[in-house]
Protein backbone atom coordinates (compact mmCIF):
# COMPACT_ATOMS: atom_id res chain seq x y z
CA UNK A 1 0.00 0.00 0.00
CA UNK A 2 1.49 3.31 -1.05
CA UNK A 3 1.95 6.01 1.55
CA UNK A 4 -0.76 8.62 1.39
CA UNK A 5 0.12 11.87 -0.33
CA UNK A 6 -0.06 14.01 2.84
CA UNK A 7 1.10 17.07 0.99
CA UNK A 8 -1.89 16.86 -1.37
CA UNK A 9 -4.14 16.14 1.61
CA UNK A 10 -3.17 19.38 3.38
CA UNK A 11 -3.16 21.46 0.19
CA UNK A 12 -6.65 20.29 -0.81
CA UNK A 13 -8.13 20.71 2.67
CA UNK A 14 -8.77 24.44 2.34
CA UNK A 15 -10.62 24.21 -1.01
CA UNK A 16 -12.77 21.42 0.42
CA UNK A 17 -13.52 23.37 3.62
CA UNK A 18 -14.22 26.38 1.45
CA UNK A 19 -16.75 24.29 -0.45
CA UNK A 20 -18.36 23.50 2.90
CA UNK A 21 -18.40 27.16 3.91
CA UNK A 22 -19.85 28.60 0.71
CA UNK A 23 -21.87 25.56 -0.40
CA UNK A 24 -22.74 22.72 1.94
CA UNK A 25 -23.40 24.64 5.16
CA UNK A 26 -25.43 27.61 3.83
CA UNK A 27 -27.30 25.30 1.45
CA UNK A 28 -28.26 23.03 4.32
CA UNK A 29 -29.23 25.86 6.65
CA UNK A 30 -31.32 27.78 4.12
CA UNK A 31 -33.05 24.64 2.84
CA UNK A 32 -33.75 23.42 6.37
CA UNK A 33 -35.23 26.75 7.45
CA UNK A 34 -37.53 26.95 4.44
CA UNK A 35 -38.23 23.22 4.74
CA UNK A 36 -39.39 23.60 8.36
CA UNK A 37 -41.88 26.28 7.36
CA UNK A 38 -43.20 24.00 4.61
CA UNK A 39 -43.27 21.10 7.08
CA UNK A 40 -45.32 23.04 9.63
CA UNK A 41 -47.83 24.11 7.01
CA UNK A 42 -48.10 20.58 5.61
CA UNK A 43 -48.42 19.06 9.10
CA UNK A 44 -51.26 21.44 9.99
CA UNK A 45 -52.91 20.73 6.64
CA UNK A 46 -52.73 17.00 7.31
CA UNK A 47 -54.35 17.52 10.70
CA UNK A 48 -57.12 19.60 9.14
CA UNK A 49 -60.66 18.27 9.40
CA UNK A 50 -61.34 19.47 5.85
CA UNK A 51 -60.86 16.33 3.76
CA UNK A 52 -59.53 18.05 0.61
CA UNK A 53 -56.90 19.99 2.60
CA UNK A 54 -55.54 16.92 4.34
CA UNK A 55 -55.59 14.99 1.05
CA UNK A 56 -53.45 17.60 -0.67
CA UNK A 57 -50.93 17.38 2.16
CA UNK A 58 -50.94 13.59 2.09
CA UNK A 59 -50.35 13.65 -1.67
CA UNK A 60 -47.41 16.03 -1.28
CA UNK A 61 -45.79 13.87 1.39
CA UNK A 62 -46.32 10.77 -0.71
CA UNK A 63 -44.62 12.29 -3.78
CA UNK A 64 -41.68 13.69 -1.83
CA UNK A 65 -41.04 10.47 0.05
CA UNK A 66 -41.79 8.19 -2.88
CA UNK A 67 -39.33 9.65 -5.37
CA UNK A 68 -35.51 9.84 -5.16
CA UNK A 69 -34.02 13.16 -4.17
CA UNK A 70 -31.59 12.92 -7.08
CA UNK A 71 -34.50 12.58 -9.51
CA UNK A 72 -36.23 15.57 -7.92
CA UNK A 73 -33.04 17.63 -8.36
CA UNK A 74 -32.70 16.62 -12.00
CA UNK A 75 -36.37 17.35 -12.77
CA UNK A 76 -36.00 20.85 -11.37
CA UNK A 77 -32.60 21.70 -12.85
CA UNK A 78 -32.43 19.74 -16.12
CA UNK A 79 -36.13 19.06 -16.71
CA UNK A 80 -37.89 22.37 -16.14
CA UNK A 81 -35.82 24.30 -18.76
CA UNK A 82 -37.52 22.21 -21.47
CA UNK A 83 -40.84 23.82 -20.52
CA UNK A 84 -39.17 27.22 -20.40
CA UNK A 85 -38.37 27.40 -16.70
CA UNK A 86 -34.68 28.01 -16.25
CA UNK A 87 -33.55 28.00 -12.63
CA UNK A 88 -29.88 28.40 -11.69
CA UNK A 89 -28.06 25.72 -9.66
CA UNK A 90 -28.29 27.24 -6.18
CA UNK A 91 -32.03 28.04 -6.23
CA UNK A 92 -32.72 24.66 -7.85
CA UNK A 93 -30.94 22.92 -5.02
CA UNK A 94 -32.71 25.00 -2.37
CA UNK A 95 -36.11 24.23 -3.92
CA UNK A 96 -35.47 20.49 -4.08
CA UNK A 97 -33.94 20.22 -0.60
CA UNK A 98 -36.54 22.35 1.15
CA UNK A 99 -39.42 20.44 -0.45
CA UNK A 100 -37.70 17.25 0.66
CA UNK A 101 -37.29 18.45 4.25
CA UNK A 102 -40.87 19.72 4.11
CA UNK A 103 -42.14 16.25 3.26
CA UNK A 104 -40.18 14.31 5.83
CA UNK A 105 -40.29 16.81 8.69
CA UNK A 106 -44.05 17.34 8.30
CA UNK A 107 -44.59 13.78 9.51
CA UNK A 108 -42.33 14.40 12.50
CA UNK A 109 -44.17 17.60 13.41
CA UNK A 110 -47.57 16.01 12.91
CA UNK A 111 -46.67 13.16 15.25
CA UNK A 112 -45.27 15.61 17.80
CA UNK A 113 -48.46 17.69 17.77
CA UNK A 114 -50.53 14.53 18.25
CA UNK A 115 -48.29 13.53 21.16
CA UNK A 116 -49.32 16.56 23.23
CA UNK A 117 -52.09 15.42 25.62
CA UNK A 118 -55.64 16.48 24.76
CA UNK A 119 -55.94 18.13 28.16
CA UNK A 120 -53.52 20.80 26.99
CA UNK A 121 -55.88 21.79 24.17
CA UNK A 122 -58.72 21.87 26.66
CA UNK A 123 -56.78 23.99 29.15
CA UNK A 124 -55.97 26.44 26.35
CA UNK A 125 -59.63 26.63 25.38
CA UNK A 126 -60.65 26.93 29.00
CA UNK A 127 -58.58 30.07 29.53
CA UNK A 128 -60.33 31.49 26.46
CA UNK A 129 -57.75 30.97 23.76
CA UNK A 130 -58.71 30.45 20.14
CA UNK A 131 -57.62 27.33 18.31
CA UNK A 132 -54.77 29.25 16.70
CA UNK A 133 -53.60 30.80 19.98
CA UNK A 134 -53.68 27.43 21.73
CA UNK A 135 -51.64 25.95 18.92
CA UNK A 136 -49.03 28.71 18.95
CA UNK A 137 -48.73 29.27 22.70
CA UNK A 138 -49.50 25.87 24.24
CA UNK A 139 -49.19 23.01 21.75
CA UNK A 140 -46.29 23.88 19.43
CA UNK A 141 -43.81 24.74 22.21
CA UNK A 142 -44.43 21.29 23.69
CA UNK A 143 -44.35 19.61 20.28
CA UNK A 144 -41.02 21.32 19.60
CA UNK A 145 -39.44 19.48 22.51
CA UNK A 146 -40.56 16.13 21.16
CA UNK A 147 -39.46 17.02 17.62
CA UNK A 148 -35.85 18.00 18.32
CA UNK A 149 -34.23 14.55 18.12
CA UNK A 150 -35.98 13.42 14.91
CA UNK A 151 -35.61 16.85 13.30
CA UNK A 152 -31.90 16.82 14.12
CA UNK A 153 -31.68 13.56 12.24
CA UNK A 154 -33.42 15.17 9.28
CA UNK A 155 -30.94 18.04 9.36
CA UNK A 156 -27.91 15.77 9.56
CA UNK A 157 -29.24 13.72 6.64
CA UNK A 158 -29.77 16.94 4.73
CA UNK A 159 -26.16 18.04 5.26
CA UNK A 160 -25.00 14.81 3.64
CA UNK A 161 -27.65 14.93 0.90
CA UNK A 162 -26.38 18.33 -0.23
CA UNK A 163 -23.49 16.43 -1.86
CA UNK A 164 -26.01 15.57 -4.59
CA UNK A 165 -26.05 19.27 -5.51
CA UNK A 166 -22.59 18.76 -7.04
CA UNK A 167 -24.45 16.96 -9.86
CA UNK A 168 -26.37 20.12 -10.75
CA UNK A 169 -23.22 22.25 -10.79
CA UNK A 170 -23.40 23.75 -7.29
CA UNK A 171 -19.97 24.49 -5.84
CA UNK A 172 -19.95 22.69 -2.53
CA UNK A 173 -17.79 20.37 -0.46
CA UNK A 174 -17.96 17.27 -2.62
CA UNK A 175 -17.69 19.14 -5.93
CA UNK A 176 -14.44 20.67 -4.66
CA UNK A 177 -13.05 17.27 -3.66
CA UNK A 178 -14.01 15.85 -7.04
CA UNK A 179 -12.24 18.66 -8.84
CA UNK A 180 -8.96 17.98 -7.04
CA UNK A 181 -9.39 14.21 -7.42
CA UNK A 182 -9.93 14.41 -11.15
CA UNK A 183 -6.96 16.70 -11.55
CA UNK A 184 -4.55 14.71 -9.32
CA UNK A 185 -5.83 11.17 -9.87
CA UNK A 186 -5.80 10.61 -6.06
CA UNK A 187 -9.42 9.45 -5.83
CA UNK A 188 -9.15 7.38 -2.64
CA UNK A 189 -7.40 10.15 -0.73
CA UNK A 190 -9.71 12.95 -1.81
CA UNK A 191 -12.97 11.06 -1.32
CA UNK A 192 -11.88 9.92 2.14
CA UNK A 193 -10.90 13.49 2.89
CA UNK A 194 -14.37 14.68 1.81
CA UNK A 195 -15.93 11.99 3.99
CA UNK A 196 -13.84 13.15 6.94
CA UNK A 197 -14.99 16.75 6.59
CA UNK A 198 -18.67 15.68 6.37
CA UNK A 199 -18.16 13.57 9.47
CA UNK A 200 -16.65 16.46 11.43
CA UNK A 201 -19.55 18.74 10.46
CA UNK A 202 -22.02 16.08 11.62
CA UNK A 203 -20.16 15.60 14.91
CA UNK A 204 -20.49 19.32 15.59
CA UNK A 205 -24.20 19.12 14.77
CA UNK A 206 -24.75 16.18 17.11
CA UNK A 207 -23.16 18.14 19.93
CA UNK A 208 -25.38 21.10 19.15
CA UNK A 209 -28.37 18.77 19.19
CA UNK A 210 -27.71 17.55 22.71
CA UNK A 211 -27.29 21.13 23.90
CA UNK A 212 -30.65 22.15 22.44
CA UNK A 213 -32.26 19.09 24.00
CA UNK A 214 -30.78 19.92 27.40
CA UNK A 215 -32.09 23.46 27.14
CA UNK A 216 -35.58 22.29 26.23
CA UNK A 217 -35.43 19.67 28.97
CA UNK A 218 -35.68 22.25 31.69
CA UNK A 219 -39.40 21.73 32.18
CA UNK A 220 -39.46 17.95 31.88
CA UNK A 221 -39.40 15.51 34.77
CA UNK A 222 -35.97 13.93 35.19
Amino acid at each position, binding site marked *: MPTPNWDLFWRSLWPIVQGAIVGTIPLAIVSFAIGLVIALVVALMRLSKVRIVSSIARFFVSVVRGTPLLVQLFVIFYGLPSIGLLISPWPSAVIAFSLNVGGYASEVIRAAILAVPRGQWEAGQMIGMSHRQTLA*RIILPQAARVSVPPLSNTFISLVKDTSLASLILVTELFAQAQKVAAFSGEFMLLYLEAALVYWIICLVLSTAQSRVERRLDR*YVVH
Partner: protein
Amino acid sequence: MSSTDSAVPGVPLLRVSGLKKSFGDNEVLKSIDFTLNAGKVLVLIGPSGSGKTTALRCLNGLETPDAGTVSVAGDVTISFDEPVTRKQRLALRDCSAMVFQNYNLFPHMTVLQNVIEGPVRVKKVAKAKATEDALRLLAQVGLAEKRDAYPFELSGGQQQRVGIVRALALAPRILLFDEPTSSLDPELVGDVLRVMKDLATEGWTMVVVTHELEFARQVADEVLFLDGGVIVERGDPRVIFTAPREERTQQFLARLLHPLD
Protein backbone atom coordinates in the same frame (compact mmCIF):
# COMPACT_ATOMS: atom_id res chain seq x y z
CA MET B 1 -60.64 38.16 45.70
CA SER B 2 -64.17 38.98 46.78
CA SER B 3 -66.69 37.56 44.42
CA THR B 4 -70.09 38.83 45.34
CA ASP B 5 -71.81 38.45 42.01
CA SER B 6 -74.05 41.33 41.10
CA ALA B 7 -76.71 38.97 39.77
CA VAL B 8 -80.32 40.03 40.04
CA PRO B 9 -81.63 38.91 43.47
CA GLY B 10 -84.02 36.01 43.24
CA VAL B 11 -82.93 35.11 39.71
CA PRO B 12 -80.62 32.08 39.58
CA LEU B 13 -77.15 32.87 38.30
CA LEU B 14 -77.03 29.63 36.34
CA ARG B 15 -80.01 27.92 34.80
CA VAL B 16 -79.70 24.64 32.93
CA SER B 17 -82.70 22.93 31.39
CA GLY B 18 -83.27 19.92 29.19
CA LEU B 19 -79.54 19.37 28.70
CA LYS B 20 -78.85 16.34 26.48
CA LYS B 21 -75.64 14.88 25.15
CA SER B 22 -74.81 11.66 23.32
CA PHE B 23 -71.49 10.28 22.14
CA GLY B 24 -72.47 8.13 19.17
CA ASP B 25 -75.13 5.72 20.46
CA ASN B 26 -74.21 6.35 24.05
CA GLU B 27 -76.70 8.77 25.59
CA VAL B 28 -74.64 10.28 28.40
CA LEU B 29 -77.06 13.03 29.47
CA LYS B 30 -80.81 12.43 29.20
CA SER B 31 -82.27 15.82 29.95
CA ILE B 32 -80.71 17.47 32.97
CA ASP B 33 -82.26 20.45 34.77
CA PHE B 34 -80.88 22.51 37.61
CA THR B 35 -80.42 26.06 38.77
CA LEU B 36 -77.76 27.64 40.92
CA ASN B 37 -77.96 30.91 42.80
CA ALA B 38 -75.03 33.27 43.08
CA GLY B 39 -72.63 32.42 45.88
CA LYS B 40 -73.93 28.87 46.22
CA VAL B 41 -72.10 25.58 45.85
CA LEU B 42 -73.57 22.72 43.84
CA VAL B 43 -71.96 19.29 44.13
CA LEU B 44 -72.53 16.57 41.55
CA ILE B 45 -71.99 13.00 42.69
CA GLY B 46 -72.61 9.71 40.98
CA PRO B 47 -70.93 6.58 39.67
CA SER B 48 -68.47 6.86 36.80
CA GLY B 49 -70.22 7.13 33.48
CA SER B 50 -73.20 8.80 35.14
CA GLY B 51 -72.73 11.97 33.09
CA LYS B 52 -71.63 14.33 35.85
CA THR B 53 -68.33 15.29 34.20
CA THR B 54 -70.02 15.69 30.81
CA ALA B 55 -72.59 18.02 32.38
CA LEU B 56 -69.79 20.11 33.86
CA ARG B 57 -67.88 20.23 30.57
CA CYS B 58 -70.99 21.42 28.75
CA LEU B 59 -71.02 24.49 31.02
CA ASN B 60 -67.51 25.48 29.87
CA GLY B 61 -68.14 24.69 26.22
CA LEU B 62 -65.65 21.82 26.22
CA GLU B 63 -68.60 19.71 25.05
CA THR B 64 -71.44 20.98 22.92
CA PRO B 65 -74.79 19.65 24.15
CA ASP B 66 -77.20 18.16 21.60
CA ALA B 67 -80.18 19.91 23.12
CA GLY B 68 -81.20 22.04 26.06
CA THR B 69 -80.69 25.56 27.33
CA VAL B 70 -77.94 27.07 29.44
CA SER B 71 -78.23 30.60 30.70
CA VAL B 72 -76.06 32.72 32.93
CA ALA B 73 -78.05 35.64 34.29
CA GLY B 74 -77.26 38.90 32.59
CA ASP B 75 -74.63 37.40 30.28
CA VAL B 76 -75.82 34.76 27.95
CA THR B 77 -78.68 32.40 27.14
CA ILE B 78 -77.98 29.65 24.67
CA SER B 79 -80.42 27.16 23.26
CA PHE B 80 -78.59 24.15 21.92
CA ASP B 81 -81.68 23.01 20.03
CA GLU B 82 -80.43 25.06 17.11
CA PRO B 83 -76.89 25.58 15.77
CA VAL B 84 -74.77 27.63 18.15
CA THR B 85 -72.49 30.39 16.91
CA ARG B 86 -68.86 30.67 17.88
CA LYS B 87 -69.60 33.96 19.57
CA GLN B 88 -72.26 32.36 21.78
CA ARG B 89 -69.94 29.55 22.73
CA LEU B 90 -67.18 31.96 23.70
CA ALA B 91 -69.64 34.08 25.69
CA LEU B 92 -70.69 31.01 27.69
CA ARG B 93 -67.09 29.93 28.22
CA ASP B 94 -66.24 33.40 29.45
CA CYS B 95 -68.67 32.99 32.36
CA SER B 96 -66.84 30.09 33.95
CA ALA B 97 -63.40 28.65 34.57
CA MET B 98 -62.54 25.01 35.03
CA VAL B 99 -60.23 23.12 37.36
CA PHE B 100 -59.29 19.79 35.78
CA GLN B 101 -58.82 16.37 37.33
CA ASN B 102 -55.31 16.09 35.86
CA TYR B 103 -54.52 19.77 36.52
CA ASN B 104 -53.57 20.31 32.84
CA LEU B 105 -51.06 22.98 33.77
CA PHE B 106 -48.86 24.15 30.90
CA PRO B 107 -45.62 22.23 31.53
CA HIS B 108 -43.43 24.63 29.55
CA MET B 109 -44.45 27.62 31.63
CA THR B 110 -43.64 28.62 35.19
CA VAL B 111 -46.35 28.83 37.83
CA LEU B 112 -46.67 32.58 37.32
CA GLN B 113 -46.76 32.26 33.53
CA ASN B 114 -49.47 29.60 33.84
CA VAL B 115 -51.61 31.95 35.88
CA ILE B 116 -51.18 35.14 33.83
CA GLU B 117 -51.39 33.50 30.39
CA GLY B 118 -55.18 33.81 30.19
CA PRO B 119 -55.48 37.33 31.62
CA VAL B 120 -52.60 38.71 29.50
CA ARG B 121 -53.13 36.87 26.20
CA VAL B 122 -56.89 36.57 26.13
CA LYS B 123 -58.34 39.25 28.39
CA LYS B 124 -55.61 41.74 27.45
CA VAL B 125 -54.88 42.73 31.06
CA ALA B 126 -51.60 44.64 31.39
CA LYS B 127 -48.83 42.26 32.38
CA ALA B 128 -47.86 44.19 35.51
CA LYS B 129 -51.44 44.18 36.76
CA ALA B 130 -51.95 40.50 35.89
CA THR B 131 -48.72 39.62 37.71
CA GLU B 132 -49.76 41.57 40.79
CA ASP B 133 -53.14 39.81 40.87
CA ALA B 134 -51.55 36.41 40.26
CA LEU B 135 -49.06 36.84 43.10
CA ARG B 136 -51.83 37.85 45.48
CA LEU B 137 -53.86 34.76 44.53
CA LEU B 138 -50.81 32.49 44.78
CA ALA B 139 -50.05 33.87 48.24
CA GLN B 140 -53.62 33.09 49.24
CA VAL B 141 -53.15 29.38 48.46
CA GLY B 142 -49.67 29.35 50.03
CA LEU B 143 -47.67 29.16 46.82
CA ALA B 144 -46.17 32.65 46.50
CA GLU B 145 -42.62 31.33 46.72
CA LYS B 146 -43.28 28.86 43.88
CA ARG B 147 -43.94 31.58 41.29
CA ASP B 148 -40.89 30.68 39.19
CA ALA B 149 -41.11 26.90 39.56
CA TYR B 150 -42.16 24.68 36.68
CA PRO B 151 -45.13 22.35 37.22
CA PHE B 152 -42.93 19.22 37.34
CA GLU B 153 -41.18 20.65 40.39
CA LEU B 154 -44.44 20.75 42.36
CA SER B 155 -46.40 18.06 44.21
CA GLY B 156 -49.80 17.10 42.88
CA GLY B 157 -51.51 19.14 45.56
CA GLN B 158 -49.44 22.19 44.71
CA GLN B 159 -50.12 21.73 41.01
CA GLN B 160 -53.84 21.57 41.62
CA ARG B 161 -53.71 24.71 43.74
CA VAL B 162 -52.00 26.42 40.82
CA GLY B 163 -54.81 25.04 38.64
CA ILE B 164 -57.32 26.70 40.97
CA VAL B 165 -55.42 29.99 40.91
CA ARG B 166 -55.27 29.85 37.10
CA ALA B 167 -59.06 29.54 37.08
CA LEU B 168 -59.52 32.34 39.64
CA ALA B 169 -57.26 34.66 37.65
CA LEU B 170 -59.80 34.58 34.83
CA ALA B 171 -62.27 36.26 37.21
CA PRO B 172 -65.11 33.93 36.21
CA ARG B 173 -68.65 34.16 37.55
CA ILE B 174 -68.76 30.42 38.13
CA LEU B 175 -65.96 28.05 39.15
CA LEU B 176 -66.15 24.50 37.80
CA PHE B 177 -64.25 21.64 39.45
CA ASP B 178 -63.94 18.30 37.66
CA GLU B 179 -62.93 15.72 40.27
CA PRO B 180 -60.18 18.07 41.47
CA THR B 181 -58.75 15.64 44.02
CA SER B 182 -59.12 12.33 42.19
CA SER B 183 -55.52 12.31 40.89
CA LEU B 184 -53.97 13.26 44.22
CA ASP B 185 -52.18 11.19 46.80
CA PRO B 186 -54.54 10.84 49.77
CA GLU B 187 -52.45 12.99 52.10
CA LEU B 188 -52.56 15.92 49.65
CA VAL B 189 -56.33 15.92 49.16
CA GLY B 190 -56.92 18.04 52.26
CA ASP B 191 -54.79 20.96 51.03
CA VAL B 192 -56.89 21.28 47.89
CA LEU B 193 -60.25 20.77 49.61
CA ARG B 194 -59.39 23.42 52.20
CA VAL B 195 -58.67 25.95 49.46
CA MET B 196 -62.00 25.08 47.83
CA LYS B 197 -63.83 25.45 51.12
CA ASP B 198 -62.28 28.89 51.61
CA LEU B 199 -63.46 29.90 48.16
CA ALA B 200 -66.99 28.79 49.00
CA THR B 201 -66.87 30.82 52.21
CA GLU B 202 -65.73 33.85 50.26
CA GLY B 203 -68.88 33.62 48.21
CA TRP B 204 -67.73 32.05 44.95
CA THR B 205 -70.38 30.30 42.92
CA MET B 206 -69.15 26.75 42.36
CA VAL B 207 -70.14 23.54 40.59
CA VAL B 208 -68.07 20.63 41.87
CA VAL B 209 -67.90 17.06 40.58
CA THR B 210 -66.35 14.99 43.35
CA HIS B 211 -66.36 11.77 45.33
CA GLU B 212 -65.37 13.60 48.52
CA LEU B 213 -68.57 13.19 50.52
CA GLU B 214 -67.19 14.96 53.56
CA PHE B 215 -66.46 18.03 51.42
CA ALA B 216 -69.95 17.86 49.96
CA ARG B 217 -71.50 17.52 53.42
CA GLN B 218 -69.66 20.55 54.79
CA VAL B 219 -69.62 22.87 51.78
CA ALA B 220 -72.43 22.06 49.35
CA ASP B 221 -75.67 23.99 49.40
CA GLU B 222 -77.21 21.37 47.16
CA VAL B 223 -76.17 17.90 46.00
CA LEU B 224 -77.28 16.29 42.75
CA PHE B 225 -76.96 12.53 42.47
CA LEU B 226 -76.65 11.50 38.81
CA ASP B 227 -76.91 8.00 37.45
CA GLY B 228 -77.39 6.85 33.88
CA GLY B 229 -77.58 10.40 32.57
CA VAL B 230 -80.44 11.58 34.77
CA ILE B 231 -80.64 13.34 38.11
CA VAL B 232 -81.89 10.62 40.42
CA GLU B 233 -82.06 12.66 43.59
CA ARG B 234 -81.29 16.19 44.70
CA GLY B 235 -81.33 18.12 47.90
CA ASP B 236 -79.54 19.32 50.99
CA PRO B 237 -76.41 17.21 51.55
CA ARG B 238 -77.25 16.51 55.18
CA VAL B 239 -80.54 15.02 54.07
CA ILE B 240 -79.22 13.09 51.07
CA PHE B 241 -76.29 11.57 52.92
CA THR B 242 -78.22 10.59 56.03
CA ALA B 243 -81.58 9.68 54.56
CA PRO B 244 -81.44 9.13 50.82
CA ARG B 245 -84.88 8.45 49.35
CA GLU B 246 -83.92 6.62 46.19
CA GLU B 247 -82.57 3.10 46.22
CA ARG B 248 -79.85 3.89 43.68
CA THR B 249 -78.61 6.74 45.85
CA GLN B 250 -78.56 4.45 48.88
CA GLN B 251 -76.56 1.82 47.00
CA PHE B 252 -74.10 4.36 45.66
CA LEU B 253 -73.49 5.93 49.07
CA ALA B 254 -73.17 2.53 50.67
CA ARG B 255 -70.50 1.52 48.19
CA LEU B 256 -68.65 4.77 48.72
CA LEU B 257 -68.79 4.58 52.50
CA HIS B 258 -68.27 0.83 52.88
CA PRO B 259 -66.24 -0.29 49.83
CA LEU B 260 -65.43 -3.70 51.34
CA ASP B 261 -68.93 -4.81 52.26
